[in-house]
């Protein structure tokens, strides 16, 4: 599996546009900045929705209104983050594919998506009975708390990707080699 991921990453790395994006100082920085600054729209909206469910933000505004109205800007923000995130991976595929932090981040993004699906499903099923209450029921609050925790770790992992503590070209423990999927004899980043 790791070898397959590595080979795909090398294939992407060999495409001319990957090198062009990576080597373009301004374009790469624009893409990275857009990825980071869109946090205000995507995570900003998401955290406000989660804080509403926990009773810390907009406690006297119906929960369904906050969730419905902030959903669109949040999804626009996440779309931009997703596209710029793919571009960032496209620019540095080999190092990213073998980054411990990138791998944790991807797993957590899947967990965030599942949590969001369950959160909305449970909310839509029951919101009419607690819509005007300052705090959502425990099941919904748990979903909101999980969302806050998962996304916080996603941001931390995203920040850690920039650091080379566990890069495969350093001598790492067998555990890190396993988690990062380091391939013997790899020659490029």
């Amino acid at each position: 599996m790791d070898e397959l991921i590595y080979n795909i990453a090398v294939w992407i790395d060999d495409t001319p546009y990957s090198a062009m994006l990576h080597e373009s100082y301004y374009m790469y920085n624009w893409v990275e900045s857009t990825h980071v600054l869109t946090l205000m729209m995507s995570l900003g909206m998401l955290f406000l929705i989660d804080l509403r469910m926990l009773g810390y933000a907009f406690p006297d505004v119906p929960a369904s209104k906050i969730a419905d109205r902030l959903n669109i800007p949040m999804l626009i923000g996440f779309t931009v983050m997703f596209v710029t995130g793919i571009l960032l991976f496209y620019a540095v595929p080999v190092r990213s594919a073998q980054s411990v932090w990138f791998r944790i981040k991807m797993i957590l993004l899947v967990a965030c998506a599942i949590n969001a699906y369950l959160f909305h499903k449970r909310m839509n099923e029951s919101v009419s009975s607690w819509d005007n209450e300052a705090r959502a029921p425990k099941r919904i609050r748990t979903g909101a708390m999980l969302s806050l925790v998962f996304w916080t770790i996603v941001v931390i992992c995203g920040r850690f990707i920039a650091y080379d503590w566990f890069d495969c070209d350093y001598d790492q423990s067998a555990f890190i080699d396993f988690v990062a999927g380091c391939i013997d004899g790899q020659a490029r980043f």
Partner: protein
Amino acid sequence: MPPAILGPYTRTILTAAIIAAALGFSFTYARLSVYTELMPFFEWMETTWFGYVGKTWGAAFATIQAGHLIGLAVLGGCVIVSDGRLLGVLLTDVPHRKVIDRADRVFFWALITLLATGVFMACGVAMKIYYLPVYWYKMLALGAGILFHYYVRRPLVAHEIESINPIILKMTAIASILVWFLVAATGRWIGFSG
């Protein structure tokens, strides 16, 4: 100062004058003497516990950076919601007053998070940022943002919203979004410098 002297826009004019004076000070030789005197303060920042941890413990520094980003996300969210309401594009079926007041509470704590994590990060790289022009641009933008938010925007929207000229409201909302975006963008720019 009595509002009558500068008419109904006293706070706006004063804020604009303070920002213009700060820019004038920053982009002329007038700043050099103050800039030199600030150096011992930045050297001291690196010797503090925050500075020591920031310099020697990369993981702690990166985690605080992530906290800074999360603070920025929440602050940005509050700005988008509150100013989006003033622009008539978000939460239009919730009264202005409710949206603005509730968003402002969260905004305050997000700003505190940003400032606290920002001070920690600054201590870790104090001498680096001292020599970075973009760090000073960010401080100017942040000062302008806080001044604008608490001295112009907040007192303005404390009035009955319906009694305020809609164009003034929309201009205030756009200015607010732009100033906080500028704070975020200059912060990102620091990461590309030095």
